[in-house]
């Protein structure tokens, strides 16, 4: 659930989502869910010549399973906080595994 929470902190930031079919979509992150499905607003496709069918589309729901990368603005990522949260998550996972 760490990345779900992390994505929630990025709401309203501008991101670029690269899909597994090599299409890249820039837009404002509006929502994310447990599968890391992503909803983007005010989108623009980076290679509009290659994908003209999206030129009239203004907001998209992208299925989490087809996402390859999400490019984030460096300024909005608190890496120390993220590292901390990762350690905590790992520790709680380990505690759970040990308790079994």
């Amino acid at each position, binding site marked *: 659930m760490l990345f*779900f929470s992390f994505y*929630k902190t990025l*709401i309203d930031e501008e991101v670029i989502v690269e*899909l*597994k*079919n*090599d299409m890249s*979509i820039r837009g404002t992150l*509006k*929502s*994310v*869910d*447990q*599968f890391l*499905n992503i*909803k983007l607003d005010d*989108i623009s496709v980076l290679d*509009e010549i290659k994908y*003209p*069918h*999206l*030129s*009239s*589309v*203004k*907001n*998209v*729901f*992208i*299925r989490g*399973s*087809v996402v390859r990368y999400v490019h984030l603005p460096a300024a909005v990522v608190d890496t120390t906080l993220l590292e901390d949260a990762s350690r905590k998550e790992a520790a709680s996972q380990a505690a759970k595994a040990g308790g079994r």
Partner: protein
Amino acid sequence: MNPLALDAAALPSIIFTTAAQLVDCVDRRLLVVLRDGRKLIGILRSFDQYANLVLQDTVERIVVGSLYNDQPRGVYIIRGENVVLVGQTVRLCLIFMIVIAIIVLTPMQDPEKEATPLMKHVSLDEIFEAQQQESDSRRQREELKNSKLIDIGFSIDSQAEDMY
């Protein structure tokens, strides 16, 4: 206490579930892109947490370069795993304005089909021909690439169509 703050706490404006993301798309005409590259445009009537979708009055938009043709297809139940993205087009009032502009400018054309300004609507025969040309040239490029790779000692994996 600030009543606005209270409201925000009681009713979080964004609920982070698949349902919340898709519920405002219901009863709207959407563009759905599938994993095999097909583009379906239909009215979303139902969905679930896997992004399984029900589309009504669907047309399949065959796109080759900047040419396209819409084929009526009917009702679709799409299994969620095949969905790449679900796109909402510009709001109805904007489409309406564009439609009005197009009716004024080109009275002979079907206004709905011109909602995508970069693309040109062509007949089924023309789109099939363009599709054929595109797949031929892709195959030629592929064969050339493979022969070059074999020349320098690479083996060729079977070319998977599905990139996902």
